[in-house]
């Protein structure tokens, strides 16, 4: 039996193509968990998911169970979800409010900040046993920006601010769409697909697929769920996004990219529909900027697992389960200070576009599944990311292109190669 020599990772990514094994090889997936998710800044939660003292949620980070917990002083902690006695998970609820976490096995009891508070029959552990030596282990580094909490399992490295760089500008825009400057995450919409996690990242940067993958969705109005006073008009198509007026793209920082959509139908910028929203935004930012903020339509992709989508007001978290199984959590965000009618319209827009019962993202998921199955042919090695044209560097340090381009995913794979090439 022939033994395949493990190619070094920098040989699996070329400037205009990547090797199929990135999507199919379980060993590569295992290394991704250690070298990407276990090393770089990874998004874990937005602070509005745990707004009150004692609030917590559980999740996984690089495949490891964690608790995101807010203590009595309002400080958020990221703790590994394993009792220091024998390792049992101390919390299995997806979210809630608790004054302590008690292990079900021998009742070792921890405070929301992770400190070990109580061990039954502690005397039997001997006089040298010190509670303070055995807290729930905190994740190495935790930092947040505008309420978006990131973690890194690497004890040292660039700060979150350094890592995000120019991306902070676009995170600001996402948050500033709320008249009060605060977004509130609601319960996530969860869906899955039988394919590799990178397919979702590739897709969010893909300016090419929409008119084909979403041909059926384009037969219905994109705002079919938004109440209109003037009813059905025209042929009800997405015509304004299928005229080959492709979105533009920008890249900046380590694998971070932003795709912009122009001239599309803007659900919330129509002043006739939500005049109260625009008025509230204008109060905070002035009329002109209010219209700009309300109509923002971009996908901000922060490698490896976070996507911000202002138009349908949600952030999307990628959860790799195995090399060919991925879960996506979509958190629709209410805009604080916006009228209820607008927030309800945003919830409807998220349901229509990005839920398991939706009519847009479901077709992407089908495409991802077909890629995963198609790659089983092993008939050829290199998947193409060749599209592009002129790229320029602007005054903000962004690399920009205004043509149909795969510049953004090429940036992802340069970052993939950089992280994976370090043992």
């Amino acid at each position, binding site marked *: 039996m022939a033994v395949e020599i493990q190619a070094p990772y920098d040989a699996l990514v070329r400037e205009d193509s990547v090797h199929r094994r990135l999507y199919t090889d379980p060993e590569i997936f295992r290394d991704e968990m250690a070298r990407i998710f276990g090393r770089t800044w990874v998004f874990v939660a937005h602070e509005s998911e745990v707004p009150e003292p004692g609030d917590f949620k559980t999740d996984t980070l690089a495949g490891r169970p964690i608790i995101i917990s807010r203590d009595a002083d309002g400080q958020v902690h990221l703790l590994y979800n394993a009792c220091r006695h024998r390792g049992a998970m101390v919390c299995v609820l*997806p979210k809630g409010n608790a004054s302590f976490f008690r292990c079900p096995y021998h009742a070792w009891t921890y405070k929301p900040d992770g400190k070990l508070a109580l061990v039954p029959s502690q005397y039997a552990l001997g006089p040298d046993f010190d509670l303070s030596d055995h807290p729930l282990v905190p994740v190495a580094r935790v930092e947040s920006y505008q309420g978006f909490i990131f973690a890194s399992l690497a004890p040292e490295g660039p700060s979150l601010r350094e890592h995000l760089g120019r991306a902070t500008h676009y995170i600001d825009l996402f948050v500033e769409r709320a008249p009060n400057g605060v977004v509130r995450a*609601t*319960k*996530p*919409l*969860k*869906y*899955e*697909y039988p394919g590799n996690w990178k397919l979702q990242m590739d897709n969010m940067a893909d300016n090419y697929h929409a008119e*084909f*993958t979403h*041909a*059926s*969705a384009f*037969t*219905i*109005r994109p705002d*079919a*769920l938004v*109440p209109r006073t003037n009813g*059905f008009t025209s042929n*009800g198509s997405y015509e304004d996004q299928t005229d080959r007026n492709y979105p533009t793209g920008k890249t900046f920082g380590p694998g971070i990219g932003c795709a912009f959509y122009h001239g599309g139908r803007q659900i919330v910028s129509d002043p006739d529909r939500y005049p109260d929203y625009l008025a509230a935004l204008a109060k905070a930012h002035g009329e002109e900027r209010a219209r700009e903020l309300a109509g923002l339509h971009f996908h901000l992709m922060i490698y490896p697992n976070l996507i911000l989508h202002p138009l349908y007001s949600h952030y999307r978290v990628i959860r790799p389960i195995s090399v060919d199984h991925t*879960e*996506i*959590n979509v958190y*629709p965000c*209410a805009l604080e200070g916006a009228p*209820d009618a607008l*927030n*309800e319209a945003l*919830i*409807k827009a*998220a*349901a*229509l576009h990005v*839920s*398991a*019962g*939706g*009519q847009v993202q*479901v*077709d992407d*998921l*089908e*495409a991802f599944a077909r890629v995963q199955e198609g790659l089983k042919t092993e008939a050829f090695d290199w998947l193409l990311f060749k599209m592009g044209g002129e790229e320029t560097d602007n005054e903000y340090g962004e690399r920009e292109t205004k043509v149909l381009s795969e510049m953004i995913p090429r940036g992802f794979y340069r970052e993939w190669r950089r992280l994976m090439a370090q043992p």
Partner: protein
Amino acid sequence: MAPADGAAVTQELARRASQLTKSGALRLEIERFLYEEAALLDNRQFDEWLTLFAEDGSYHVPNDDDEVRPGDAGALIYDDYRAIAARVRRFQHPAALTQIPPPKTRHFITNVVVNPGPDDEVTVTSYQIVYASRRGQDKQYPGSMEHVLRRDGDRWRIRRKKVCLITGDKALASLPIL
């Protein structure tokens, strides 16, 4: 017992029997409605399914089986009549990828309880499992349903259909029409 009392008892029994017959007939009528709706979905007669809805009808699948406002928990489906019509059009579109090939479904409905309401309306609660098979994969979507039906001449129309899945905390594959 005086003869007059005997007549009153007979009358009362007849009234109760008539009531029972009426409510029994109503239950059968409503059950038949639900089964016919299920058959239309399973046979992919989506245009006919759409005609079951009133023009002010809605179809809602919350992202939570608890009763919370959609603004707090989001929704998997939150359709007014126009959106239901759009959903049907998309499912029938030749390029709808999730429908190539279409899932084969069976809607299993049990535990039907009919609660007559005012204004020619009934509220019907039931349990449902939608079993969907597609491309070698079987998925199950168990949950409870609530239909608010309004009498419209000699037929019923759906004013509100709500399906609460008990799989809310799980990542879901793409949904068929539930």
